[in-house]
């Protein structure tokens, strides 16, 4: 049920119009960061206020919303943002990637390929890919305008000289349609290939930094690299211990005091779907229900011996 004391999707109409105009300009100039007058939201800066404002400006009553953080629907901040939209927009929510029309995400792109009807909204902490090389906005803005990205290439090249490979594992910079260098938000570089030529619309919102940018569907997104050091989106050489998937991004979980560990899909919907389809990994079994009560707020429950 929608809370009647708020406007639909919380934001007032004037604010929504301002954000909508910024989104459209972002779509028209793929990869360029459009400044927008980010509002103070009832949740802290750095906790998804940019993504929340973009989602709020896009939501319509018929939408089905999915919210993930670290790939999981049940991380506390994902729960909190989902509740916010249930309360203020009354929209239906889902954990199934395929059922969602809008997916707000922090740090992951779902494993399951997105489709043409979907919008993926990223929460972005630092939208400027050049920020850690040049802290001044006045300077980085000039660099983008002149398409002067030498600094970034020097940084990546120094990595190779020092470490033998590029030492950036997440928030790996990309170039959009051959023009703007863009920060894909702190997704693991494993997810980078999914940015390119997606049938879905990808929108990026940075609330504190007051920027919105976009990758329209079917847009070329290339991870920066060198001919002799091509981009490598590799991940841990393991299979999921719960569902056995070999191609998904994994979280590492420490399971006991003696350093035992297991690897599980970071995308909880993907893992659950596989287990429900009968797949099982090294330590899991096909699981047909997740109604297990836990005392911790999320995670993996070890064998207790009292399973019915």
């Amino acid at each position: 049920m929608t809370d009647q004391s708020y406007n639909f999707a919380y934001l007032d109409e004037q604010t929504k119009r301002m954000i909508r105009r910024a989104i459209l300009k972002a779509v028209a100039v793929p990869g360029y960061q459009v400044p927008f007058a980010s509002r103070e939201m009832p949740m802290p800066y750095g906790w998804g206020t940019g993504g929340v404002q973009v989602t709020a400006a896009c939501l319509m009553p018929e939408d089905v919303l999915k919210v993930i953080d670290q790939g999981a629907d049940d991380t506390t901040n994902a729960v909190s943002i989902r509740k916010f939209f249930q309360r203020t927009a009354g929209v239906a929510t889902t954990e199934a990637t395929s059922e969602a029309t809008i997916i707000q995400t922090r740090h992951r792109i779902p494993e399951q390929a997105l489709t043409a009807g979907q919008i993926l909204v990223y929460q972005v902490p630092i939208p400027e890919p050049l920020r850690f090389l040049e802290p001044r906005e006045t300077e980085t803005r000039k660099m983008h305008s002149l398409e002067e990205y030498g600094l970034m290439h020097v940084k990546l090249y120094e990595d190779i000289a020092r470490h033998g490979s590029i030492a950036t594992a997440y928030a790996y910079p990309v170039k959009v349609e051959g023009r703007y260098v863009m920060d894909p938000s702190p997704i693991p570089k494993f997810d980078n290939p999914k940015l390119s030529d997606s049938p879905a619309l990808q929108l990026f919102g940075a609330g504190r930094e007051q920027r919105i940018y976009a990758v329209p569907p079917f847009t070329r997104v290339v991870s920066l690299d060198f001919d002799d050091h091509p981009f490598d989106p590799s991940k841990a050489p393991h299979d999921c211990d719960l569902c056995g998937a070999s191609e998904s991004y994994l979280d590492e979980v420490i399971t006991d005091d003696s350093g035992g560990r297991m690897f599980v899909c970071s995308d909880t919907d993907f893992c659950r779907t596989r287990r429900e389809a009968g797949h099982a990994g090294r330590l899991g079994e096909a699981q047909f229900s997740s109604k297990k009560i836990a005392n911790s707020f999320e995670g993996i429950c070890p064998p207790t011996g009292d399973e019915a």
Partner: protein
Amino acid sequence: MYVAVKGGERAIDNAHAFLAEERRGDPAIPELGTAQIREQLRLSVNRVMAEGSLYDPDLAALGIKQSRGDLIEAVFLIRAYRTTLPRFGASRPVDTGKMTCTRRISATFKDAPGGQILGPTFDYTHRLLDFKLLADGQTPPAAATAPANESPLPHITGFLDRDGLIQPETGNAETPPDLTREPMELPAPRALRLQALTRGDEGFILSLAYSTQRGYGRTHAFVGELRIGTVAVEMEIPELGFAVEVGEIELTECETVNQFTGSKTEPPQFTRGYGLTFGQTERKAIAMSLVDRALRWRELGEDDTGAPAQDEEFVLMHADNVQATGFLEHIKLPHYVDFQSELELIRKLRTEAIAARTEAAE
């Protein structure tokens, strides 16, 4: 067998219940009312109003109660509420020259028309804990003060103005940009800088101001005048064709007088820094005026010494404590996807480095 579990929603609900219980504290102790906060913790209320950019003592008191006295959290509550308020229009600029002053001091002139008014200040209290306040307080006897000076007190810097000894501040009819409605664009005009400073974190502005006094962008500041009091807020009503008073607010205004030996573009004269804040918030207003003056190096043709307080982008982008605290505290959110990718990278780099070393040794 291991299974995936859920419980995020329940954990959040439980945490909220726990928080409410902690907020109340020992139920045997009477609950604190927001009127008590408003009246007896007024300097906290003032800070929350100043940094929350909303003049409403009752709501600020509520914010302080709800936040368990965490003033930055209270500022955040006020800001989030403020953004939802419809805007009916803009007031006329307040006239601080017509302020009814409860306090007014100058460090540059021993006396001036209107005199020095000490007002309710900690300045000359001996900082000794007053154990009498531990006991249930009695109403203190009324202070022997002259009745508030209702006639307007001239601005002290006006005397220097008259002799052409201080750089004149000319009025500007342009509507200043609204920091809360437009994205920050740099370089910022002074009006925008002052907006950012007045709602900036008191601690941050204080430290920056202090750094200028210790030589990081020194501006040789004296407090030309510090005044605290109430001013009328007036709004132009187009249908009436004149302005009507819609209320009264308490403000602190500080003008510093800064020695200035001249530059390539400006003659030797005094210059000023300006601070204006909601409520009695004089530490903030003084600090603001020092930082304002330090940021004016460019327009006065001074050298950029590389001092933090001279660096507009550094100051403006980091002064806001609601932004800063949000981003600082977000690192406690789960980052295990990023961390996992770092873990893999470090493992890979280590393996390669160790292999290279072994090879070299052979």
